[in-house]
């Protein structure tokens, strides 16, 4: 099966809720046992497949397990049950500007951030002009990034990430960066990625955006998968359920 980009198979993720945690050696020794905790399943038996070339949305209320699932997809967390199989190189965009050093220049940070996201030096050099142009910070590229405005900072971070050019891009609610003009640019870029046959998985609370971008949507509630299917219907079911709860 080559038309599946990511397959999520019966994934469960457990967290420990510590009532008393042995964070220091003293407490570990004094209490003489490991620690007191309860188990909490943030994800429960979630299964779905993301087809190649699709834009896949994850929706759900706060605390429904969306971000946990996204972190499992990004290999930051490891599921306790089940497994996730990804076909192709992936990049995760959970935060923009990861690893930026405030004292270093924009140029140095592009190389640093790019290599953290898994690009080789050759790739970065090749894409350097594109990244700078997309971010719109040409004039300040040799200034330390601590002098950047917060908008410039996130734009630069986002530009690096979007140019990693992965087969699978995982995005967490970071689309809402920059001004209207930059957002427009991002939309165009996502459309290009889609045309190039890339797979995008994103989490968002903005239903308008999800409806506009996604083909398939999965709805999570309290760690369980409610439904997965065509975007329009799933979003409608989700918004209906919200209205039912809050009349």
């Amino acid at each position, binding site marked *: 099966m080559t038309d599946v980009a990511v397959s999520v198979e019966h994934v469960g993720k457990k967290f420990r809720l510590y009532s008393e945690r042995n964070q220091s*050696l003293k407490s570990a020794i004094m209490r003489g046992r490991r620690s007191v905790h309860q188990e909490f399943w943030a994800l429960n038996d979630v299964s779905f497949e993301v087809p190649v070339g699709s834009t896949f949305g994850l929706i759900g209320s706060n605390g429904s397990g969306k971000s946990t699932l996204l972190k499992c997809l990004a290999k930051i967390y490891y599921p306790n049950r089940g497994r996730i199989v990804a076909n192709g190189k992936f990049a995760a965009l959970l935060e923009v500007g990861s690893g930026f*050093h405030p004292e270093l220049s924009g140029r140095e940070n592009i190389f*640093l951030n790019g290599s953290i996201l898994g690009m080789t030096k050759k790739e970065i050099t090749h894409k350097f002009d594109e990244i700078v142009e997309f971010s719109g910070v040409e004039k300040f590229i040799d200034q330390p990034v601590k002098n950047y405005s917060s908008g410039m900072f996130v734009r630069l971070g986002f530009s690096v990430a979007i140019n990693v050019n992965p087969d699978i891009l995982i995005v967490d609610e970071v689309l809402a960066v920059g001004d209207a003009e930059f957002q427009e640019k991002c939309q165009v870029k996502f459309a290009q990625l889609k045309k190039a046959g890339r797979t995008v998985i994103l989490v968002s609370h903005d239903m308008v955006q999800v409806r506009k971008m996604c083909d398939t949507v999965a709805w999570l509630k309290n760690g369980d998968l409610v439904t997965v299917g065509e975007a329009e219907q799933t979003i409608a079911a989700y918004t209906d359920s919200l209205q039912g709860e809050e009349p």
Partner: protein
Amino acid sequence: MHYLKELFSARELLLNLTLREVRGKYKRTVFGQLWSLANPLASMLVYTLVFSFILRIKPDVGDPSGLNVFAVWLLCGLLPFIFLTNVINDGMGSLVNNANLVQKVYFTRIVLPLAMVGAVGFNWLIEMGVLIVALTIVGAWVIPWIPLVLVAMVLLAVFGSGLALMLAVANVHFRDTQYFMSILLQIWMYLTPVIYPVSLVESKSREFGGILGTNITVLDVYKLNPMEHFVGLFRALLYDNRWPDPQDMIACVLWAVGIFALGLWVFRRTEKGLAEIL
């Protein structure tokens, strides 16, 4: 093996993270990289004053180099020890200090402590360069020994990396580790013949005889300290300009490989859970 391959493929990231530390460290200072020399020089002045002029410690004259300068003799052991201390301190904090990165991006975590070793190693390389110039000025013929000095430096870096890997993980679980280590490192330095010659321990050990009626002497126990061998290695090469004691060479290789393998094993086992615990 598979893990080493993964590490090899992350070499560019390792280099970039090392450069981040090196470049970022002395930004916005007037003297820049010179500051990295200030610390060992200050220690050298203090120790020379106290141990050479006041306590009158006399290390053996360099054989065959014929050197007899306490300050230089001290630096040959002090610089490697300061390097180890910095590797342990910076490497140990690397995961906790980069918690944000670990929780947001996937990459081979091992590059974080190793990048600190690289950054500290870069400073050490400069220090050792200055020391070699100083040695040459006071009359040592150290240049032919430089390749072996580099080998010894790599060995110590491998040994330090192994410790840093273990301690970085330990520090994620128990933040006590860093406070505990700062005390332990002080004690460790005085248990190592850095500011006094090992001959002082030898003569005391002979007076004392075997411990509790056994054949084991104080010196045997004293030599269990891996840094005793490393300091011996560096002194022989730099100060005496001769082949080091084969015992020291074997001990250094074994300690370096053993501790690094152990560190790698510990790190690998716990790597996956780091993002949650941090």
